[in-house]
């Protein structure tokens, strides 16, 4: 009888610990910071009707071309579009929410005198053809970061 009781208690403890190990309640309180893998911000913009907020990141070459308007091979642009959310701690402010899409544009030398671009959508869905998207993404001017 005592053995039965000990076994039942043991089962209860194991079941409890398994439940805790798989407890996802903590995940709902987690806050995700977008990992740009070392790329720097070129600019940010939003669309109140589409309810999106975007951050355009780039490598050093992309940042330079966004200042001068002159492109070179090796540029990397990453446009991250987030869903726009209400900032629950400040009425009057929208903040970036979940990632809606990620677009990647890279430049390469098509020949000695011409720079061409490749376009990818690593995450989400985007409307508009690749050429229009490339033109839009690479034509943003860099913000001033004092």
């Amino acid at each position, binding site marked *: 009888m005592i053995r039965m009781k000990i076994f039942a208690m043991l089962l209860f403890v194991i079941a409890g610990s398994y439940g805790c190990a798989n407890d996802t309640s903590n995940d709902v309180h987690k806050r995700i910071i977008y990992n740009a893998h070392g790329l720097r911000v070129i600019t940010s913009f939003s669309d109140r009707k589409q309810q999106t907020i975007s951050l355009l990141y780039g490598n050093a070459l992309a940042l330079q071309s966004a200042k001068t308007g002159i492109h070179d091979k090796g540029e990397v642009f990453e446009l991250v579009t*987030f869903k726009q959310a209400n900032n629950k701690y400040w009425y*009057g*402010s929208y903040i970036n929410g979940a990632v809606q899409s990620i677009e990647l544009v890279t430049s390469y030398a098509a020949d000695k005198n011409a720079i061409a671009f490749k376009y990818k959508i690593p995450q989400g869905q985007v409307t508009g053809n690749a050429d229009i998207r490339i033109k839009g993404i690479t034509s943003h001017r860099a913000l001033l970061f004092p």
Partner: protein
Amino acid sequence: MLGYSLVKKLRSMVSSKKLRLWPIAGILLVGIISIQFIQVPVQNDKVTHPINASEEVAKIFRKACYDCHSNESKFNWYDKVAPVSWLVNHDVKVARSRFNFSTFDTLSATDQQVRLWEMVNMVLAGKMPLNSYTILHPEAKLTPHDVEVLKNYVVSISPTRYHDSSQIKSAEEEQKVLVDKSTASKNIAVAPNGVRFIPDYKNWEVISTTSRFDNHTMRVIYGNKVTVNAIQSGRIKPFPDGAAIVKVVYNIIEEKNGEVYPGAFNNIQIMIKDEKRFPESKGWGFGRFNGKGLKPYGETAAFNTTCYNCHKIADETGYVFSIPLENKDLK
């Protein structure tokens, strides 16, 4: 016979206790009377420049805010008796120093807007009117309709100017600065409270970006490693010492089709966490550097308190407004 002696004994006990209590009661009474002279009750000064708002809005302010935030405070008899009067005195003095509806129109239009948005956000966060006040003054509580009226009011005083040509021109002018780096200052700007500008923020991670319709600006918000680790591990109440946040603020160009683009650079705002240096603001030191010249904001270190007073709204998130949303709030 036994009953009679017991009653007699009890009577004598009560009367002897009464005798002992009289001096204590007397001392207390003298004490209460004496403390009435320690502090003069709050006075109502003249109403010189009252807030200029519609009757519907003013009525809400009068019922919920005026007893503390105006020169038209109405006191009950117990508000005038020390020590209650001391608490009332303190609360009213602090409230009037933050903003006073009786002199509100002396503030610039921008300052009025800032304070009004802060008021609405204080209300939405449940911080105002104070619970300690509404317990005794239940009529001061705001209804959902009152809150909607106030929200609509602040939006109405901050109208959007679509395709603002002056903003577009400023943004174009700024592009010249981006290419010509000769204007960059080598001196590190320092705020009056000792908070220094941090040029290295550009190498930090972006924790969020915001687009605001209250003051028509947008922000790119950076956090150092300590901040990023604290947010990711959920250790934000409180943020650890060494946390630093930099908000880069730009004007915005708003189009009727909903598109919002950054205009010219406006200012940089910094928060650094140091419990020993800034004990009166929960360890947060604030700095604001205006314009491309990064001119430090504030005449004295006291501006830190003004910043902190507003950030109290975000006590749920360690006094930081714009940290990434929790997973449960992502849609």
